């Protein structure tokens, strides 16, 4: 679970990550619905000062600081401050140059030419050149590297160094998410040439980013300090400390003690525990829809759930507003399809299905589920309408959500058995497709390409369309969407996909939870945007008289 997430680290690969984090706090973005509470930000024409330390609390322990190996969010948050990619997202979720000054995409979409920024230095003083990019690419596709991210880079047909600051990358076929994939953080060739397994580097990384690595106490904290030579300008906050506290209550107590400056709150903490005078004076809370959603996935190989009427009926029978109220204490939005409100792919014309148990009963009756047995459950051909809703252990919100669903479906005569499994076992069952329905969440990246999740070619074993959804029109649109680059054109395609998937309901979309970060009031310069609050982290600052750490 991540509390702090600089935008750079977010788009190293692409797509969607299944949320298996347990209590979610989404560090990410926002929209016009952005609200921030407590002390109003004092943003007169004060001059930003250097100094002070920010201490961010993190539930998860970072695992490795090698960017191409870091798969967990705790590690990604830290490497995102030490390294840069070629491209990154700005506050409006537009792709802009990072280490690349600009790029050119050939008309057929097969070639991307990156023009790299000159004068960028590694934190040890060496110059950054195209050879570092080549090295990172070679490591990514090297079969000996234990990286999970090789997929996107294996699509590269040819990688050519034109000169020290120009790279031409050729693809087999046009691939729009390829551009984002170069947000992959670049590693220094000169330091790693002779280090086969990154063992030393993973504990002592050197990058081009705004912060330099200082110290890592395993399982405790990671300390970074500002890189005075940073090419975008020295960050104002001198030190960044990520403190690992695996327990949500302790995390909150440490915040209350003001030994942490920045954590993600749970809905309960947000609504009930931080409404005191103390918190209002000392902290600033933010709230914005995260890039993720929770859903019920139906196994469409199961003859019962293959019937669209049944899925529709269940959708009508579940009161999603009630779930948001009960589980998230109101801190979430209705989810209508595979994209979230902050994404440009979101189709705002699609309306959520409202709670209507009568309609649900009618639909069920249409497909023959009409008679009820003594217990009040529907029966057809002597069989009771009963299924198992599977979810993972350790996620309190999902458990509560499942219970509310169980209750609501009982009212229309469907018996739900809830089964909660440890994550590893849970995945095993999904891999084997031995489930009827799962309650899960996806964390989304900024690029809307969801080919792996909804394309019919991805229903094979261990692939991610585990509900076995098939729709030729969606297939075609998904293929088209990843082949063209201009956002305006892609927007039309993905909004259509949003509509189609909403209509087909392979998932019952439930809610988009809000991200709820809280930050010590002494930090200024925070600019809420649709891309969250951390996009301009290096511009945050603390007035000299309020600095707490020297």
């Amino acid at each position, binding site marked *: 679970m991540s509390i702090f997430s600089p935008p750079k680290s977010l788009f190293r*690969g*692409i*797509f*969607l*990550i*299944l949320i*298996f984090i347990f209590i979610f706090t989404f560090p990410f973005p926002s929209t016009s619905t952005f609200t921030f509470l407590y002390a109003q930000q004092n943003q007169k024409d004060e001059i930003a000062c250097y100094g002070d*330390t920010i*201490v961010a609390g993190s539930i998860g*322990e970072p*695992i*490795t600081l090698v960017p191409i*190996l870091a*798969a967990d969010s705790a590690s990604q948050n830290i490497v995102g401050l030490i390294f840069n990619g070629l491209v990154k997202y700005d506050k409006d979720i537009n792709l802009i140059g990072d280490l690349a000054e600009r790029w050119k995409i050939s008309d057929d979409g097969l070639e991307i030419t990156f023009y790299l920024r000159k004068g960028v230095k590694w934190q040890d003083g060496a110059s950054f050149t195209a050879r570092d990019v080549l090295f990172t690419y070679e490591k990514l596709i090297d*079969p*000996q590297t*234990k*990286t*999970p*991210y*090789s*997929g*996107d880079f*294996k699509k590269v047909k040819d990688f050519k160094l034109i000169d020290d600051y120009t790279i031409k990358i050729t693809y087999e076929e046009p691939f729009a998410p390829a551009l984002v994939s170069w947000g992959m953080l670049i590693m220094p060739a000169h330091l790693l040439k002779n280090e086969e*397994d*990154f063992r030393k580097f*993973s504990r002592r990384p050197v990058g081009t980013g705004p912060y330099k690595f200082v110290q890592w*106490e*395993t*399982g*405790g*904290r990671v300390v970074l300090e500002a890189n005075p030579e940073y090419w975008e300008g020295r960050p104002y906050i001198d030190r960044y*400390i990520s*403190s*690992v*506290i*695996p*327990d949500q*209550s*302790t995390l909150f*107590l*440490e915040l*209350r*003690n003001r*030994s942490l400056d920045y954590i993600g709150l749970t809905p309960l903490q947000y609504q009930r525990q931080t409404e005191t005078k103390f918190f209002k004076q000392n902290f600033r809370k933010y709230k914005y829809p995260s890039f993720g959603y929770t859903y019920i996935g139906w196994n469409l190989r199961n003859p019962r759930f293959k019937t669209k009427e049944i899925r529709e009926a269940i959708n009508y029978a579940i009161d999603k507003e009630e779930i948001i109220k009960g589980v998230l204490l109101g801190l979430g939005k209705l989810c209508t399809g595979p994209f979230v409100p902050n994404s440009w792919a979101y189709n705002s014309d699609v309306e959520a299905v409202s709670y209507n148990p009568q309609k649900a009963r009618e639909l069920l009756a249409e497909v023959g589920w009409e008679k009820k047995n003594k217990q009040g459950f529907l029966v057809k051909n002597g069989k009771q309408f009963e299924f198992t809703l599977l979810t993972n252990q350790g996620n309190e919100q999902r458990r509560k959500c499942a219970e509310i669903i169980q209750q609501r479906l009982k009212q229309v005569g469907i018996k739900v058995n809830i089964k909660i499994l*440890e*994550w*590893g*076992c849970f*995945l*095993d*069952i*999904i891999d084997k497709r031995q489930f009827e329905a799962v309650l899960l969440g996806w964390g989304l990246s900024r690029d809307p390409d969801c080919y*792996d*999740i909804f394309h019919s070619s991805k229903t*094979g074993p*261990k*692939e*991610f369309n585990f509900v076995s959804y098939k729709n030729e029109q969606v297939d075609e649109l998904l293929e088209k969407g990843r082949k063209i680059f201009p956002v305006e054109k892609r927007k039309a395609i993905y909004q259509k996909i949003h509509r189609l998937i909403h209509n087909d309901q392979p998932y019952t979309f439930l809610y988009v939870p809000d991200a709820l970060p809280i930050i010590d009031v002494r930090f200024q310069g925070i600019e809420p945007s649709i891309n969250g609050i951390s996009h301009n982290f290096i511009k945050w600052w603390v007035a000299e008289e309020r600095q707490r*750490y020297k």
Partner: protein
Amino acid sequence: MFPYFLKRILNLIPVFLGITIISFAIIHLAPGKPSYLQGMDPRISAEAREQLVKLYNLDKPICVQYLNWLKRLVKLDFGNSFTDGRRVSTRIKERLPITLLINILAMGVIIAFALPIGIISALKPGGLFDKWTTFFVFIGFSLPGFWLALLLMLFLGIKLNWLPISGIRSFNYAQLSFWGRGLDLAKHLILPISVAAFGGLAGFSRYVRGNMVNVLAQDYIRAAYAQGISKKTIICKYAFKNALLPLITILGLSIPGLIGGSVIFESIFAIPGMGRLFYNSTMARDYPVIMGILVIGAALTLLGNLLADLCYAWADPRIRYN
């Protein structure tokens, strides 16, 4: 006696091997895969997964995997962690000192309190002191540790601001003097050790009390009283020593416990100890680390048993091994 112990030690080898085989089989039989293969992350392509399976030798039959593991173990090499690629021994070494420190200190505190409590209550079973201490230690035993910990954190850490809430070191630890560091560490350890000790007091003190009551009812104690030996001498010299004998077994059995930590505790207090390492490794199906910790635990359990037997022979002249 020596041949007896030689035999015991030789006997340990097959037992140890048996433990490793069973552990290895069980952790591989459990559903789920190592964390890299576990993530439902579409960024990770099927090919990349296959490749990782091969790199970790997970495609080989399980007996081959076991033999490879055993071959390395003979050279005392536990292999590399699946999670971060570092040596298992390094990962364990990082976590061991703090775990040992906390467990040994907690054990010390438990013994220091449990012995007097047990003995004094045994002198007058059912008396006021016995009743009150029984009440007190059972409160400690039955209160959920995490709850007590949170209350103490709230009270001592936030309300009174006397003690740090979590972690084992302050931010400025590196800048402190030697004594400053000691003090800093001590302040951080007070809460976790007190909470751990409070929870463990019941078992040990009740054991001491029970043994002591038994011993005090023995004929030789009565005989000693009849001889007119002072009560103090009887209790300290004759009864106490004999009451301690069965505790040797308990102490021997608690040796492997010294390297194990509690996940709940370590999470609440944010202590990077063995409990969290083991828990996280299990969740991530990091087989080499799990096996490493299990092997050390098994070795210590066997060693603890052996030591307990040795100590018995040394402490109790009635026991002779032949």
